[in-house]
């Protein structure tokens, strides 16, 4: 099987410090890859680099489109980037407020990506929006409310609906469950797991929460100081950590 997204030697540093260094990774269709590591280990930088939301210093990044063409992501121009990120990708931010338009209703938020790629039928947009609200377990009757009327967990689900409405093949998520309380987290994780398997969605999820990784990920990458120190199947990495840092990470999960 061909990789959906393939990065090799990806490096992005800030003034020669921080960021991520020399990262190789493959994401296959339908696969959930989690990147774990402590704050400042370069997880988010790597995610932004993969989603071409930031430039990189060196390395290569390739993506296989629906049509089977291989795109050199680092050579795309702005319109191509926008089209790709609107039709093939989604990006779920850590804070729902970064990913949502705050001054328009939930329905408009879900409809916006569709309008951006040319949907011009109000009735159908509305139908799709309410359908997606149901699919992310939101009350479709609240379609006309502003995002601020929803709770944190609901806003996050709204953001996920907005990202999935265009039928992407790959979704990037930056700490999607951070800042939510535990029971809400559990529901969201359950939803994410259902959606990714139902839609055969590939996902790259950045998290510092080993629990999230264990529940969602097929494969795991552990980062420290900008470098990938260990990677492999989730259970393998978590049950038999090799690198001292991974061992600390796994050992420091509080038992319930």
């Amino acid at each position, binding site marked *: 099987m061909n990789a959906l997204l393939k990065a090799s030697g990806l490096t992005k540093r800030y003034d020669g410090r921080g960021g991520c260094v020399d990262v190789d990774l493959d994401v296959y269709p339908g696969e959930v890859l989690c990147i774990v590591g402590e704050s400042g280990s370069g997880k988010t930088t790597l995610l932004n680099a993969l989603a071409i939301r930031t430039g990189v210093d060196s390395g290569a990044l390739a993506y296989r489109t629906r049509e089977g063409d291989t795109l050199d992501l680092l050579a795309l121009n*702005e*319109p191509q980037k*926008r089209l790709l990120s609107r039709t093939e990708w989604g990006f779920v931010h850590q804070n729902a407020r970064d990913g949502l*338009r705050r001054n*328009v*209703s939930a*329905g*408009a938020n879900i*409809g*916006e990506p569709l*309008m*951006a*790629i*040319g*949907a*011009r*039928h*109000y*009735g159908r*947009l509305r139908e799709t929006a309410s359908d997606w609200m149901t699919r992310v377990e939101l009350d479709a009757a609240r379609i*006309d409310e502003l995002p601020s009327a929803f709770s944190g967990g609901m806003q996050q689900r709204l953001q996920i609906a907005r990202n999935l409405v265009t039928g992407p093949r790959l979704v990037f998520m930056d700490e999607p469950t951070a800042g939510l309380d535990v029971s809400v987290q559990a529901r969201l994780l359950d939803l994410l797991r259902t959606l990714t398997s139902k839609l055969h969605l590939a996902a790259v999820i950045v998290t510092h929460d080993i629990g999230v990784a264990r529940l969602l990920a097929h494969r795991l990458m552990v980062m420290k100081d900008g470098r990938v120190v260990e990677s492999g199947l989730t259970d393998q990495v978590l049950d038999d950590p090799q690198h001292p840092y991974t061992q600390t990470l796994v050992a420091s999960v509080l038992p319930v």
Partner: protein
Amino acid sequence: MSTHEAQAALSEGYNFAYLDEQTKRMIRRALLKAVAVPGHQVPFASREMPLPYGWGTGGLQVTSAIIGASDTLKVIDQGSDETTNAVNIRRFFARTAGVATTTRTADASIVQTRHRIPETPLTDAQIIVYQVPMPEPLYRLEPRVTECRKLHALADYGLINVKYYEDIVQHGSIATTYDYPVLVNDRYLMAPSPIPKFDNPKMHMSPALQLFGAGRERRIYAIPPYTKVKSLDFEDHPFSVQKWEHACALCGSRESFLDEMIVDDEGTRMFVCSDSDYCHSRRDDKEKEAAQ
């Protein structure tokens, strides 16, 4: 105003039509570019004018750059020739350029306007100059100027529909009634200045050259004659213009844009044409017919 008086004004130290020739050339260059790229906002070095921003400094500079001694100027504000803004700008050019002025749309070679397009159809011998307060149609939707430019460059106008979606949610229909954004020549999104959406269809395939000047925002844009101008909408909520149950109380027109006026303390209402010249000429025609 007589030629003698006009020359007296010129001899007071003002150049023809107030602006110096270099400035007019600069504005004409911007105008040429604007006509070449319909609907695209062209920056220009807007000058201080002897009236405040918001009173038509952009339109004034455009008119000043294109007016010649043989032109006939009409200035309207909200459709009327008699409001302060219209009277003053008309007098300004009568004094500084000594040009003939008129209130009759058909007699004018240049019409400078604020908030309306005349009801009388314009011809290919006429130029209409719009005064524009805010040239950026995405202004309320995207606060970053750099991002707005990018959106224009990529013809990425989905945001407008997000606004219309929200309008329909809140009001049941697209609630934008003036300054209704249009797509010019299937390419650039353009703010038509605060004209009512009633006037939008008049811009489509108009034989007259349409020039837009925004003084404070320092932008000029244009629609060349016979250019497609489309008002954006939803397929199932198509663009439509305002309609009135009333006819004009003075001339009886059912086709023109009506102003609602409260005429006494009891709240009695009266609907009259906002285009005063159109209303006058219809009444004159009726009187003539009656006389015959």
